[in-house]
C-alpha cells in the first residue's frame, strides 16, 4: 500500500498520494521532533513540515531499500541538526543541551520518569534512544538515519541508557535526602 503511494508520487507527482503518506507517517516524525526539541511544539512542527517538503522534493531518490519511515527519520534528523547549527548560541542552548546549564540538580527533583530524564541527554543520545526504543528502528537503520557507524550506534545506546540510569539514581537520592 505504502509502496504504491510512493510510486504514485514518484511517477505522477501526485499530491493526494503524498498527503496520504503524510497522514500515515506524521505521528512518529512529529513525536520524534518534539522530543528532540524538548517539547517545543512550534519548532518541532515547523521542522516536521520542512521534513515532508524536503521528502516530496527528493522522493525520487528514495529507492525503497529501507522503510519509508526510516528515510523520513533521516531527513527529520538532518533538519534538526542543521536547524540547531543555524541558531544563535542562545537558541542552541535552549534547544540542544540543557544538561550543562548548571540547574540540572534542581530540575531533577521534579522529574521522575525516563521521558523527563531524557531531556538531559545530548541531542544525539536523545535521538538514538527515541529511534530505538520509541520507534523500533534497528541498529542498522539508526546507523543510516544518523549517518554514523554501526559500532557507534551500539556504544551510544548503551552509554545513553546508562546515563539515564545514573540520572534516575541521582534523582532518587535527591528525593530521599529531601525527606
Amino acid at each position, binding site marked *: 500500500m505504502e509502496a504504491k503511494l510512493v510510486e504514485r508520487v514518484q511517477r505522477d507527482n501526485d499530491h493526494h498520494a503524498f498527503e496520504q503518506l503524510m497522514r500515515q507517517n506524521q505521528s512518529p516524525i*512529529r513525536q520524534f521532533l518534539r522530543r528532540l526539541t524538548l517539547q517545543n511544539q512550534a519548532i518541532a512542527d515547523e521542522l516536521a513540515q520542512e521534513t515532508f517538503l524536503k521528502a516530496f522534493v527528493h522522493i525520487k531518490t528514495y529507492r525503497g531499500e529501507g522503510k519509508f519511515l526510516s528515510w523520513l527519520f533521516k531527513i527529520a534528523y538532518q533538519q534538526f541538526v542543521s536547524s540547531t547549527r543555524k541558531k544563535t548560541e542562545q537558541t542552541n542552548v535552549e534547544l540542544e543541551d540543557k544538561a550543562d546549564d548548571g540547574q540540572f540538580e534542581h530540575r531533577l527533583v521534579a522529574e521522575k520518569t525516563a*521521558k523527563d530524564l531524557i531531556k538531559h541527554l545530548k541531542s544525539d543520545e536523545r535521538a538514538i534512544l527515541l529511534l530505538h526504543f520509541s520507534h523500533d528502528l534497528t541498529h542498522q537503520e539508526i546507523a543510516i538515519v544518523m549517518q554514523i557507524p554501526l559500532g557507534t550506534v551500539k556504544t551510544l545506546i548503551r552509554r545513553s541508557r546508562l546515563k539515564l540510569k545514573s540520572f*534516575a539514581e541521582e534523582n532518587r537520592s535527591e528525593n530521599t535526602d529531601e525527606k
Partner: protein
Amino acid sequence: MKNDFLDDDWLKETLSDDYIHDDDFSFSVVKKIQLNERKSKRNFYTILAVMIGVISVLFIPDLLMVFSQGPTSLSLLGPVNEQNMQMEFMGLSVIFLSFILIWSFEDFDLI
C-alpha cells in the same frame, strides 16, 4: 514504578508517546508544496521570457529586414537609421508580448 533502564521492554513502554494526528498539518504541507511548485514554475517562465527577449532583440530586426528587403539588405544596414529604430521597437514589442503571453499561461494555469 519499576525503573530499569537496562530493560528494553520497560524503556520502550516508557518512551512511547501518544499518537499525533491532524489533517491541518498535511493540508498545510500540501499547500506549501503547491506554492513551491508555482514559484519554481514562475522562475522557469521568467527565464524563458528573458531568453525569448534576448533572442528577439538580437535577431528579429535583422530577420524582418531580410524578409522585407531581401538578404542583401543586411549588408546595407547603417549603424543608426529610422528603419532600424522601428525594427528595434518591434523587437521590444515582441519581448513585451511574449512576456505577457507566458505570464498569462502561468497565471491561468494553461500549461
